[in-house]
C-alpha cells in the first residue's frame, strides 16, 4: 500500500517535471528572447530602452547562460510563486491569472461531478435493462455525446438559445458580479451560471463512461458470485447494487483518473466559445500574442493541478479496491 502511494507520487513528480520542461520550452521556443520582444513591445508604445538596461534585464532573467541554468533559475522563481511578467498586460503573471485558475478547476470539477452523477446510474440501468427501449435511447444519446466535440455542442447551444429563446447563455457571472469582489451573492450567481457549461463539458465524458460502465457491468452480471448472492435470498436490487456494481466500479474509477485531464483540456476550448472567465481564453490569447511567460505559466499550472487531481483519484481508487490495499503490502 505504501509502495503504491510512493510509486504514484514519484510518477506524479516525474510528470510535473516533464510538464515544467514543456512549459519552459514553450517560453523558449519562439525566436528571439523575451527581452527582445519586451523591448520591441515598449518601443511600440513609444518608450525607449537603453542597451545597458536591456543587458541588465537579460542578466536578471539569466539569459545568455546555458539553457539548464536558465531552466533552473526559472524553476526556482516559479516555486516561490514568481511566474514573471506578462508582456501584454504589463502585470505579474500571477495577478493576471488570479481567480481564473480556480474557476477553471471549479468548472472541471463540476463537470466531473455531472459525469459521475449521470454515467453511474445510466450505465447501471442500461446494463440491467439491456436491449430495453431506454437502453437504446441512452446508447444513441451516448453516441451523439461522443461524436459532437464539446466546442461544437457549445456553439450549437449558444446559437439555439439566442435564436429560439433570445437568450445569451455565455459567461459564469451576471454582468453586475463579473468584476465585483467575492461575496455570498456572487457565489450564488456563479452557482446559477455553472451548470450549463459544466453539462456541456461533461457530455462526451459521460457518454464514454456510460459505455464503459454498461460493458463492465454486463460482464460482471454473468459472474458466479451474482448467483451466490441470489442463492442467499437477497433481493434483485440489493444483489445488483452490492456485488456486480461494486466490481464494475473499479475500472470505472480508474477511468476517472484520465477523465480529469480530459475535462481540463475541454474547459479551455468551451470557455472560449461560451466566454467563460477561466484560463482558457487567456491561454489562447497569450499563445497567439507570444506572451510567453503567461502562456508557460498557465500550461504549467494546469499540468500540475491535473497531476494533483489524478493523484487524488488514484488514492480514491486504492481506497475502494481491497486487492490493491492488501496485495501491495
Amino acid at each position, binding site marked *: 500500500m505504501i509502495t503504491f502511494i510512493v510509486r504514484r507520487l514519484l510518477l506524479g513528480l516525474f510528470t510535473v517535471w516533464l510538464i515544467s520542461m514543456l512549459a519552459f520550452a514553450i517560453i523558449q521556443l519562439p525566436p528571439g528572447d523575451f527581452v527582445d520582444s519586451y523591448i520591441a513591445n515598449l518601443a511600440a508604445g513609444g518608450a525607449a530602452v537603453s542597451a545597458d538596461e536591456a543587458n541588465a534585464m537579460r542578466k536578471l532573467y539569466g539569459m545568455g547562460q546555458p539553457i539548464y541554468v536558465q531552466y533552473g533559475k526559472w524553476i526556482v522563481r516559479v516555486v516561490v510563486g514568481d511566474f514573471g511578467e506578462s508582456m501584454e498586460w504589463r502585470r505579474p503573471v500571477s495577478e493576471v491569472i488570479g481567480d481564473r485558475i480556480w474557476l477553471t478547476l471549479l468548472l472541471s470539477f463540476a463537470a466531473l461531478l455531472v459525469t459521475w452523477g449521470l454515467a453511474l446510474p445510466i450505465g447501471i440501468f442500461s446494463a440491467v435493462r439491456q436491449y430495453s427501449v431506454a437502453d437504446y435511447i441512452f446508447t444513441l444519446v451516448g453516441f451523439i455525446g461522443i461524436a459532437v466535440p464539446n466546442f461544437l455542442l457549445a456553439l450549437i447551444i449558444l446559437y439555439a438559445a439566442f435564436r429560439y429563446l433570445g437568450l445569451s447563455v455565455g459567461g459564469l457571472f451576471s454582468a453586475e458580479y463579473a468584476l465585483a469582489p467575492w461575496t455570498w451573492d456572487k457565489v450564488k450567481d456563479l452557482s446559477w451560471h455553472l451548470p450549463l457549461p459544466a453539462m456541456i463539458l461533461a457530455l462526451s465524458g459521460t457518454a464514454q463512461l456510460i459505455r464503459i460502465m454498461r460493458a463492465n457491468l454486463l460482464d460482471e452480471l454473468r459472474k*458466479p458470485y451474482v448467483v451466490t448472492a441470489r442463492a442467499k435470498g437477497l433481493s434483485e436490487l440489493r444483489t445488483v447494487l452490492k456485488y456486480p456494481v*461494486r466490481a464494475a466500479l473499479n475500472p470505472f474509477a480508474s477511468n476517472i483518473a484520465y477523465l480529469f485531464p480530459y475535462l481540463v483540456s475541454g474547459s479551455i476550448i468551451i470557455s472560449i466559445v461560451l466566454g467563460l472567465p477561466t484560463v482558457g481564453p487567456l491561454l489562447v490569447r497569450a499563445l497567439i500574442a507570444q506572451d510567453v511567460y503567461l502562456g508557460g505559466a498557465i500550461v504549467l499550472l494546469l499540468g500540475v493541478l491535473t497531476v494533483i487531481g489524478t493523484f487524488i483519484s488514484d488514492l480514491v481508487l486504492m481506497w475502494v479496491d481491497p486487492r490493491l490495499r492488501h496485495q501491495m503490502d
Partner: protein
Amino acid sequence: MVDPILSIRDLHTEFVANEGIIRAVDGVSFDVFQGRTLGVVGESGCGKSVTARSILGIVEKPGRVTGGQILLRPETGGEAVDLLQLGPKAMRAIRGPEIALVFQEPMASFSQYYTIGNQIMEGIRLHLKLSARAARDRAIELLDMVGVPQPARRVDEYPFQLSGGLRQRVMIAMALACDPRVLIADEPTTALDVTTQAQILDLLRELQQKQGLALILITHDMGVIAEMAHDVAVMYLGRAVETGPVSEIFTAPKHPYTRALLRSIPTVMAKPRTRLPTIEGSIPHPSNRPAGCAYNPRCLELIDDLCRVQEPPETGMAGRRIRCFLHGGRP
C-alpha cells in the same frame, strides 16, 4: 417410508437460444429425504447444475422453469408447498433458511470486494434478523464449525487471501448460515486438489450427520457417489434415467447408461495395462436431441425400431425408478 423433504416432479427448464429452445432439464423427478444424501450424477451438460438452480429459482435469463413441481414439506409438517407457485418475496425467504447452495468454484463464487465475514453475515442478518454483533459471532461460530483455523481473525479477511480449500469451507459455512434443511452442493470438490477434495467431502458428511441435513450432491464422479450418497439419480440429457438406493444402483445397475458409467470407474483391482472402458460417442447437444430414447445413439443394447422412435416412460416403484424399454414400459 418417511415422506421426503423435497420432491422434484417432472421438472422442465428451457433456454431460448439462437439455435432454438434448449431443454436443459426435461422431466426430472427425484426425492430428497432428511438425513440422507442424494447423489445426482451425469456427464457435463446433462442438466445437473440447471436442476440445482431451478430448485432455488435462480435460473438465469434466457432460461426459465416451464413445468413440473418442486414440493417442499414444511418443517412443522403438513401439506407440501410447490416452490414454483411462490411469489418472488416468498421464494427469497426459502433461499438460505430452507434450501442453500454450495458452488463449484469457490474463488469466482465470492465477491472479491467484501470480507468473507460480510458475505456470511449478510444472509444471517437478512433472514434471522440478528444484530450486527450477533451475526458476527454467528459467522465466527460457523467458520469454526467448518474447520477454518483462527476464525475470529479470518472473518475479516478477503476471499483472495484464503487458499482454495479454505474458501470452499467458507462457502459451506455461508450456505449453512441460516440453518437450511436442504443443502445442494454443486460439484463442490471439482476445483480442488485431491487431498482437499477428501477433506471437504468428510466435512460435508460430518455436517450432514450432525445437523440431519438433506444433502443433494451433484457430481460427475461415480467414486464420490459411492463414498457419499445414500440414493442416486443418474441424469442423461436433462432427465433422470435411473434412480434408486446407492447399494442397488452399484450392485445391480439396470439402465445401459448407468452400467456404462460404472464400467468407466478406474479400480485398483483392474488388470494392469487394460484399457479403461469409455462410453462410445459423445453427448448430443440438447438442441439436437435424438428422437426416441435420448441415449439410443450410444446404447449398446438398443431395441432397434423401438428406442429410436418412442421415448421410454418412467417405470418401477417408489425409490427405484428407471426409463428404459429393457426394463418395462414396452408398448
